[in-house]
């Protein structure tokens, strides 16, 4: 089963059981250093193993991150970022080509 935060990706993929924690990507088990919350989330996720009877079941955790501005800021593209991002993309493609040429890639 999966415990995570990217619900659209998980639903698109299709998985047996998904416990959805609507937090910024990175802390699906609960807020950092909040052990009580982490116990609650992981415990609730495990319960799905005994309660769910069909694939693609999604259950949403009731916890709230507390703020929402991260939803808009994630991978946000401002007009003034476009030239820099285009350069970054070109650099990335050049670097990937170089690594392919020297064999710094998985061979399988």
């Amino acid at each position, binding site marked *: 089963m999966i415990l995570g935060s990217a619900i659209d990706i998980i639903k698109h993929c299709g998985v047996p059981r998904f416990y959805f924690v609507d937090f910024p990507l990175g802390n699906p088990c609960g807020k950092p250093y909040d052990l009580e919350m982490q116990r609650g989330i992981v415990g609730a996720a495990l319960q799905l*193993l005994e309660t769910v009877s069909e694939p693609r079941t999604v259950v949403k955790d009731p916890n709230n991150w507390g703020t929402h501005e991260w939803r808009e800021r994630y991978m946000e593209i401002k007009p003034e970022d476009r030239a820099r991002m285009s350069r970054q993309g070109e650099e990335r493609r050049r670097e990937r080509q170089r690594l392919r040429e020297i064999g710094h890639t998985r061979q399988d």
Partner: protein
Amino acid sequence: MHETQPVHYMERTRLYYEAQGFERAYQWAHFEDVPFTPLEKSLSDSRVAVITTGSRYDRLLTDPRFVDSGEIDELPSHLFAKDLAWDKQATHLNDLGSYLPAQVLKEFANLGTIGSVAPRFHCLPTEYSQRRTRETDAPEILRRCREDQADVALLVPL
């Protein structure tokens, strides 16, 4: 007033790479048929293995990634994942328990909520190639879980 609906990560990712000039949009894995195996024992008798997309070693976005496993009784203080697309503005990975539930699972095992925790946790490499994940990495993780006699695999992607 901020939107409170779940983030549409596939759309954000598509727009982001489009802005970087990548011509072909990433094809996310998609399955028409999704397998389902009911739990064969009660949770209190089951052994749980945990799988993360984090790494025990620091790596660059361009470094090759491979399946790796660590001892559940020798947990690192944190995992490395600067090459992954978690939300680096909104949060951090300084608390291992916020993304690798090993300590909480050990507590649950001591309380009898689960039978036990598998002796190894596994690091699954996120790959651009779906074929590598499907044909090489996922079967290797499954093999290791079975070797450890795990009844349940709990995948916690970052």
